[in-house]
């Protein structure tokens, strides 16, 4: 009887504490007063560290966290995996009452999923006005910090610049027989390009026509695809990330890239965990990544930053943005279409 009472009382106290913490965080996350940054810095210094789950390459993340540590003296602990694993781990931990992560840094679709699951919390930052509109989902559950741009990459020894197609229809020309390649799971790219080619039906029909005439070498992994272009195994690949193409080109690989319009861009970025253990440090890292300083670090690593000034030159290209929420809602439909078009064209 007594123990039951004590247990109930303890539960009440813990509940109140949790509410208080949550309230504290919410107000901080959405607080936009002039001393916002100062309060964040002071709090973060007390906390001492921030735990980040990310799918960004280790070296890129290290550039960002090094700059962050130098500026604020707060240690960054990084866990790295693929974007699907980042989603899986953050979600599973949160569902099971384990709150390890402070900041999630990954691709847009996974961040959107985490925001929907209420693992991430809305943030209102005075820095948001500096970013392009497409970087800001209306619920503010995460923010786009960098763009992944899908480009077509070709091997310069095997494909002449003057024979490159001008548009998607050009790929149906028989000269591309046995020379085309694509990544195995670019569902969001497909869902963005297809509607622009005279509607869904016509768009899918065009890609089916291309595959029927010329075949399509399907590869798993964007980096593998880019490397195989450089090695000459895939002369022309349709969905390579621009920063990978740039990196290979800079290393002297016989590879160049171009954009078949519409070029497709997808935002990736950062979100703050609802139950972050280090709430100040988490918000501080969030702010740092979208600050001019953080965005310049990303630019140096060949990313397309979402900051209007820092990414100005790159934003001029006519990109079409992946509508992440729409893709997430219709994923099953697009995946089926994608598989039927590229992976199993005979079916």
């Amino acid at each position, binding site marked *: 009887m007594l123990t039951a009472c004590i247990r109930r009382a303890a539960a009440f106290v813990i509940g109140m504490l949790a509410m208080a913490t949550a309230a504290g965080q919410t107000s901080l996350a959405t607080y936009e007063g002039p001393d916002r940054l100062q309060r964040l810095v002071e709090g973060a210094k007390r906390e001492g560290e921030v735990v980040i789950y990310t799918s960004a390459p280790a*070296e890129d993340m290290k550039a960002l966290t090094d700059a962050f540590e130098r500026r604020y003296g707060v240690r960054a602990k990084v866990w790295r995996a693929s974007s699907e694993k980042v989603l899986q781990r953050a979600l599973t931990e949160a*569902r099971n009452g384990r709150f390890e992560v402070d900041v999630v840094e990954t691709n847009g679709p996974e961040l959107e999923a985490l925001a929907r699951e209420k693992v991430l919390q809305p943030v209102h930052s005075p820095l948001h006005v500096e970013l392009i509109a497409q970087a800001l989902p209306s619920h503010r559950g995460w923010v786009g910090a960098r763009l992944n741009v899908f480009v077509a990459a070709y091997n310069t020894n095997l494909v002449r610049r003057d024979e490159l197609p001008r548009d998607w229809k050009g790929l149906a020309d028989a000269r591309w027989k046995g020379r085309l390649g694509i990544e195995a799971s670019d569902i969001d790219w497909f869902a963005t390009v297809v509607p622009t080619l005279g509607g869904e039906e016509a768009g899918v029909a065009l890609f089916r026509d291309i595959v029927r005439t010329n075949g399509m070498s399907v*590869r*798993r992994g964007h*980096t593998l695809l880019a490397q195989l272009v450089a*090695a000459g195994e895939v002369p022309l690949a349709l969905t390579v990330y621009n920063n990978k193409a740039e990196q290979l080109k800079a290393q002297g690989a016989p590879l160049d890239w171009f954009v078949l319009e519409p070029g497709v861009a997808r935002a990736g970025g950062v979100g703050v965990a609802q139950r972050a253990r280090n709430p100040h440090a988490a918000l501080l890292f969030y702010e740092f990544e979208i600050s001019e300083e953080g965005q310049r670090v990303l630019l140096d690593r060949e990313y397309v930053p979402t900051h209007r000034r820092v990414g100005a030159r790159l934003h001029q290209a006519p990109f079409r943005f992946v509508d992440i929420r729409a893709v997430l809602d219709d994923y099953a439909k697009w995946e089926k279409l994608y598989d039927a078009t590229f*992976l199993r064209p005979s079916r």
Partner: protein
Amino acid sequence: MTAQRLVMAGCIALALYLALVPLVFLVHQSFHATTTAGGTGAVTLDNYRAFADPHAWRLFANSIVFAAGSALFAFVVGTTLAWINERSNAPFKRTLFALSIVPLVIPGVLFVVAWILLASPKIGLVNLVLQRMLGTDVAFVDVYTMGGMIFVDGLHQSPIAFLLMSAAFRAMDPALEESALTSGARLPRVAWQITMKLAWPAACAAVLLLFVRAIESFEVPAMLGTPAGLEVFTSAIYKAMHQYPGRTGLASAYAIALLLLAAIALLLQFRVSRRTFAHVTVTGRGYRQRPIDLGRWRHAAGALAIAYALVIVGLPLLVLAWASFQRFYSVPSMQALATASLEPYRTVLAFPALGQAVVNSLVLAASCATIVIVLAAVLAWIAVRSRLPGRAALDTLVSLPMVVPGIVLGLAIMLVYLQIPLGLYGTLGILLVAYVTRFLPYGMRYATASLVQVHRELEESAMLSGASWARTFRRIVLPLVAPGLLAGWIYVAIVSLRELSTSILLYSPGSEVLAIVVWELWENGQYTALSALGVMYIAALLGLTLLAHRFSSAISAPTAR
């Protein structure tokens, strides 16, 4: 007697616990609707409706063809080499032992890329060289076919057969072979009718392991099958796991189909190994290990071994070594030679947390292999020797996690240790639990295969002379099966170093392992740096293997003295 009961009960309890975690998880998930993050909703049979789709069955059929082909090919290659190495007097044996397990050491993704560069119809070196020599543009070999997949995967896995069969051949009294030879039987007939029949339990174990592992594998089908439109069952599991909302229930239903298949295979194999007396080669009679004189075939066998070493091990190694001095992957040429650089090695050595990862990996590999082999030795003894009711079920049950796909196993273990507050979550310990669960079935096969070759009479005489069970086990059983256990230890240690699909979900900051570094370099397209890491891996492991081999020769073949 109490010591025996205590040890046996402890081992059974531990093994059952380890095995039941993923199995219960799978069954439970497969009958529930999945909410997000592995949470479960209402009870349902919906997940099993996937089997009404003929496409699922096509994938299943592809998986079976691929796994059977790969298993048989790996078995033939591994066994031939093991026989030459252990039973014949062919030259270069020690080198052969080390070379035979090199494919095991090369990270899977790199092994496959090396073979794309060698045998792709477009840029494959083998094709290019043959085409130039013969003045034609026919593609001679094509790695993007079912045959190509079987070849590459089979080669990569042949060390499983090599290690198992070597141990079996070593624990073999040559008297039987010699009598056959002196009675005028020809060598191939002796090899097939005497040697192979005696090694039958090990052969069954090897084929089973190879088959089950290939059914569960993902690298080769993903990289060689996808461009050819050849999808396998694991790709469906992979897709179901990586969707949002995740479909763990569907993935589990798929995995249960694999489990059933494996359970049948395991029970069959158990029956084979129960027929103990048929395969006993180690008895109370003393014998001396003596290789068979191959006569004029001696040099042919040596040549075969060298050809294997050059073509199968040498070629991919050369591609690897070549790539490790380049800035990006390219077909060897004079032009590319001019741009050779040490950059990839610098990149690897400067990798964040590399030192920590090396230490963690070595600690994990050594402790996992040791725990697995000790557990497996006791469990195998129970399965083969004891009269305990339900021993067949025990043997099968603890072996089943072998087919649970790594990505599913990772999630199962994660969920369990999030809910059981043992303090394992987020530590190196959770990785150890995962590895032991995953590799105990392999240890079991190594231990059982060697134990059935040892005659019961040796233990009985020890017991009759008054030795306790513990003493008999330690002084008689363990030394007699030592070659098999050592082979198992080597295998488990190496695959632990490579394990990725489970580790990636379970590691935390501070408990990084080498396989994560491999994955990281692969994901970022730093293939040349990865090749450099591969070269260092191989150099280190070759050194270790030679040491281990010397050590195992020193403890010598098991002779009953």
